[in-house]
């Protein structure tokens, strides 16, 4: 699987647990609670969703005695989901939102982490704590806070723009909306990712940049040429978190909905799935769309990891 796993167990563990005469039941007992929960709350729901997704209502029998009943209908629900404009437009919006949110979250997290690690800044403790604080604010509450900061009647930004005679900024309509929703995710995500990258930076042996410094490199050069390549794995990891987070965005637009008419009931794919399941009672279609979203997330993650492996780690 990987070098870490291969060497991880070590010769001692092998000798210890596999010793003749001692039947290795202990590891299974330690794993039992996790495995039971894994099966019941991950595998079984996935299996049940797949099963449901293959079913649907069909008229059986002929003529006046035909009845609608639930039966196997093959991949029809998948075809319906993949040709549904609501579902597909949701992915389009997700893309527009992700193109803003992911690079900015990662970029800002990296810049702040490098600044925290640099020798040329002060106010580090304060800044680190302040930037980390939004991590403690639930996405729904963050949306509520920003929602009020966007609303013309309560927004301090509007206070300023109105004083300047510029009118109010329509944060919650038109294409500005994407930026406004993305901003909530960026605000909530920068701190956590910054800490991950920063902790990684702290792990770089000091000699490495001391050497570069003696050679006359500036702080900026050291950051770009020495530090960034060395924390590439942490950056890949944060990219993965950000990407997975993007595909499952739900709480933010749902919370903003009462404040604007621009967010439809099917703004992102998860909202469409929710509507199909609960407003339209079409559980099979919702199940098919859930399966598609889960498989899509998995594929995106694996592709990203493969690419990163080739880029950052060589083909080792």
């Amino acid at each position: 699987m990987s070098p870490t796993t291969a060497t991880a167990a070590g010769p001692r563990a092998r000798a210890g647990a596999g010793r003749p005469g001692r039947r290795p039941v202990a590891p299974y007992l330690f794993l039992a609670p996790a495995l039971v929960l894994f099966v019941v709350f991950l595998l079984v729901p996935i299996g049940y969703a797949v099963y449901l997704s293959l079913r649907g209502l069909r008229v059986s029998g002929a003529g006046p005695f035909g009845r609608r009943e639930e039966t196997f209908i093959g991949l029809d629900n998948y075809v319906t989901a993949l040709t549904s404009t609501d579902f597909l437009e949701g992915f389009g919006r997700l893309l527009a939102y992700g193109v803003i949110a992911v690079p900015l979250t990662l970029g800002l997290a990296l810049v702040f982490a490098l600044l925290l690690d640099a020798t040329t800044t002060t106010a580090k403790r304060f800044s680190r704590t302040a930037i980390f604080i939004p991590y403690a604010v639930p996405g729904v509450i963050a949306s509520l806070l920003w929602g009020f900061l966007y609303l013309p009647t309560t927004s301090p930004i509007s206070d300023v723009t109105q004083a300047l005679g510029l009118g109010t900024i329509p944060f919650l309509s038109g294409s500005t909306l994407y930026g406004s929703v993305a901003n909530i995710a960026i605000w909530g995500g920068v701190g956590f990712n910054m800490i991950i990258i920063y902790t990684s930076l702290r792990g770089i042996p000091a000699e490495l940049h001391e050497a570069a410094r003696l050679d006359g490199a500036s702080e900026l050069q050291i950051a770009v040429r020495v530090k960034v390549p060395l924390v590439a794995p942490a950056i890949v990891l944060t990219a993965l978190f950000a990407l997975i987070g993007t595909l499952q965005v739900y709480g933010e637009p749902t919370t903003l909905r009462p404040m604007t008419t621009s967010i439809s009931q099917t703004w992102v794919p998860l909202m469409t799935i929710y509507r199909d399941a609960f407003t339209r009672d079409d559980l099979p279609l919702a199940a098919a769309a859930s399966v598609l979203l889960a498989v899509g997330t998995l594929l995106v993650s694996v592709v990203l990891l493969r690419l990163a492996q080739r880029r950052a780690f060589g083909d080792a």
Partner: protein
Amino acid sequence: MSALDSAVSPVVTAPHRAPARPPRQAKVVPTAILVLGAVYCLVPVAWVLVASSKSPGELFSTFTFAPGTGLLDNLRALFAYGDGQFLLWSLNSLVYAGIGSVLSTLVSTMAGYALAKYRFPGRDAVFLAILGGVLLPGITLAIPQYLLMTKIGLAGSYWSVLLPSIISPFGIYLCRVYALAAVPDEVVEAARIDGASEWRTFRAVALPMLLPGMVTVFMLQFVGAWNNFLLPFVMLSDERRYPLTVGLYSLLAKGSGEPALYTLAIVGAAVSIVPLIAMLLFLQRFWRMDLISGGLKG
């Protein structure tokens, strides 16, 4: 998988940088960027604290950052709303996040320890399944989990929110990584030679060594469960079982018709984020973020 693997491996003997580095002269621009970031992150929090002191009339009329006069009235109204529903939501959140994350940490620690310190048939298959689970976000499972809970008649109960949050593939993964690095095989072997049972070896010898990793997993799980919205939103229909996130959302959703509820939502938001921020700031020094960010190339 090795990209993820090497990104997450910890350096338990992390080469902590020598503290005595001659401080260079601070420069204005880099510091300004950093402070600007801090201000950006603090403004919404500051706003909600100020806004929570405004009476419903002041909210839409006075200058945004001017403190109002209605803080106590707002708090009274908040705790009186719906026969004390806000307090109930807070307790529910505490139950879902608190009990859920304690159980999750224990389950993950045992599983991670087993995967790290034993060789047994099926280990690699289990580990691979866990890795697959890491890449599958829990939220895409919320609807399938709801379908299942409905089938077995648990939808709407406390269990329907609590149970799914106990299993955390990422937590198991982190615990395995941490156990690999923090519990030396020699120590485990020595305990066995002294005649300790496998359970006693785990409890008395390994567990204390795993504690810093456990705190980290606990924090991640707690914040994750506290912030969870879709799962309780899908599972629960009885308002008295709502956690804070769903409860405050319901206030906001009703508020578009009834502006007084906006004030309640704002005060509720302020009251509910303060304890969590305090807890994070307190626990910050105990967590091992290097567990996540990792040593380079493991």
